[in-house]
């Protein structure tokens, strides 16, 4: 465990420390998320994050790796992901050379040759097998994209922290890694896997938290503009859209507007930069023009009302 190691940052000891830790990594987390993260760290269970695209699920793993001073191993899932690309593969070319060399030298018998060729040095380690070194942060990203058999395979890895290679035997992780599993819910993940994890649904942030996020992630954007941006995005999320804008889109948009030296939102600016926020032509067509105007007017009223209130 890293506690014994003086150079490595310590694991947090309470929910408060976890919150502070995430804040150090420039991640604005609410109490609920900090609790889930702390539990996952403390009890060595995977953290299962579900939520719409662009709400900061992947970011949590990155921040954890950075602030805890651990290696980040990322396993991006896709349809047809198999053991050869997720766990290990034998280095056949090297094995062949080894056999030929042994033949040429003529000094090895069959049994030792077989043992030598299927040893760890001929193994190409893919993300999951790299776990067996130190305790890193393992990010299993977008698990819903992998197919069900792979999910079943993960069950063994995530509960026993060991991987079985037929030729060598079981390889066990020295210390259990921190595992973060994310899903965009393009299909339901099986309950058996979810049961082994702490679950957290990453929702769209409240206006207040989104403003905090903008302050941290896009500090060059003027405060007044940030407030308008957040109000606009929050209003947009109440619309009936195919894909609602996530936090990532809000940050993108804020930075785009800052680059264009915009100080306040107006219909022309919104129309020309809507592409940073909405990613479907249907949605853009729906919001562009009168709808955007309506939202703008509404948020101007809200923002100025909020300004007049003391302490806002």
């Amino acid at each position, binding site marked *: 465990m890293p506690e014994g190691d003086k150079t490595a940052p310590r694991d947090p000891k*309470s*929910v408060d420390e976890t919150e502070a830790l995430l804040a150090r990594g420039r991640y604005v987390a609410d*109490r*609920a998320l900090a*609790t*889930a993260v*702390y*539990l996952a760290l*403390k*009890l060595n269970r995977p953290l299962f994050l*579900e939520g719409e695209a662009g709400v900061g699920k992947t970011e949590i793993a990155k921040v954890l790796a950075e602030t805890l001073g651990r290696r980040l191993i990322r396993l991006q899932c896709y*349809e*047809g*992901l*198999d053991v050869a690309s997720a766990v290990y*593969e*034998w280095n*056949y070319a090297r*094995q*062949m050379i080894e*056999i030929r060399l*042994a*033949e040429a030298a003529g000094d090895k018998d*069959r049994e030792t*040759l*077989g043992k030598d*060729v299927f040893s760890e040095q001929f193994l190409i380690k893919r993300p999951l097998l790299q776990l067996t070194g130190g305790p890193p942060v393992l990010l299993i990203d977008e698990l*819903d*994209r992998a*197919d069900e*058999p792979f999910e079943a395979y993960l069950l063994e890895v995530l509960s026993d922290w060991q991987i079985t290679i037929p030729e060598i035997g079981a390889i066990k992780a020295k210390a259990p890694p921190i595992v973060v599993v994310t899903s965009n*819910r*393009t*299909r*339901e993940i099986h*309950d058996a896997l*979810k*049961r082994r994890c*702490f*679950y*957290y*649904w990453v929702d769209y942030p409240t206006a207040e938290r989104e403003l905090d996020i903008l302050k941290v992630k896009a500090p060059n954007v003027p405060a007044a503009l940030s407030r308008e941006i957040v109000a606009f995005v929050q209003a947009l999320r109440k619309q*009936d859209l*195919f894909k609602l804008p996530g936090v990532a889109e809000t940050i993108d948009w804020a930075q785009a507007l800052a680059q264009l030296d915009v100080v306040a939102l107006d219909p022309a600016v919104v129309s020309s930069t809507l592409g940073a926020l909405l990613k479907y032509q*249907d949605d853009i067509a729906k919001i562009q023009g009168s709808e955007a105007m309506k939202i703008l007017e509404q948020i101007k009223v809200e923002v100025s009302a909020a300004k007049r209130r003391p302490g806002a």
Partner: protein
Amino acid sequence: MPAIGSPDDQRGRLVDNLILFARVLRAAGLPVGPGKVIDAAEAVRAVGVTSRDDFYWTLHAVFVNRRDQREVFDQAFHVFWRNPRLLERMMSIALPQTVVPPEEERRELSKRVADAFRSMNESEANRPQDKIETEFDAAMTWSEDEMLRHQDFEKMSTEELERAKRAIARLRLPVEERPIRRFQLHPSGNRFDLRATLRRSLRGGGQDLEILRKRQRTRRPPLVILCDISGSMARYARMMLHFLHAIANDRDRVYTFLFGTRLTNVTRHLRYKDPDVALAKVGEAAEDWSGGTRIGVSLHEFNRLWSRRVLAQGAVVLLISDGLDREGAKGLAREIERLHKSSRRLVWLNPLLRYEGFEPKSTGIRAMLPHVDEFRPVHNLESLEQLAAALSRPASPEEMRPWLKQLH
């Protein structure tokens, strides 16, 4: 917060309370096993019971597994942990109450079972006659079956419907398999399997090298069915449900939705093995039987809420509808286009095709026709058999061409 005594006592009390809380959640329908209670106790010990908020989110992380469980958890939490004493009393009162609904259900179910038995007895009563006929003349029954195959569902008598249902229950839908990214050894595969080759070679001491081959494995893609249950489809919808039930029970990854004025996901209801139970459940779930049709609105709802969750991995979509839209096909073209673009193959089954001189005249049909891969009849057993055959081979654009020509 639960009352706190000495440390030991406190732990015992807390665990007791957690067990009770788990029971409440289980009664409310959350999948909470005994393992979860142990997890919860461990988690609470790790976080410490200092603030109500932390306590809430600690239990949330353990007990909640899906987004839609949050509401239930929230309500249960606030009722339970306000005053466990009160709750204990509530439990003692509530427990008999929670037992009541299942009993009611059972009574209802028993009625359903009784219904099922009655209809079974009736068909038993019919069966001897069938048998006599078969004994008389085997060829005769064959031709009767043949007639049944061509007969319109709408024109069938009750007894013929029963027989058609039995035929449908035997029907299989072999959707064309898609290659997946996994391999299997195969003598005439198109890739070398280096791993297997080397292992085989080593078995013989690395002397000779016999190249082994592998090929991609295939798997049936998910099947998504959208079935119209509006007034104009009423008679067919009943038969379609039997058809849907047969498919849903034959294979995995079948998702079924019904729509009239709104969309209902009946995938879970159709999983019941007994068709009568399954159809009764479906009947309860869908509230818009034999009403109007709002195809555009229903497809919009599907596209927005479900398409990304069920249309992954090369799904095939069966749309069963007569295409007669109450709202004059408003927004229909756009929605069907989106549906078409997010599915690998969109097959439209339309019972109106039973008419010889069918022409795509209604606005709904004209809006939908350009965006489907196939347009097929679905009014009798034969057409269902043809559907099975069509799905087992790739879609052919040629078959669509005459229809598209009629649009202009």
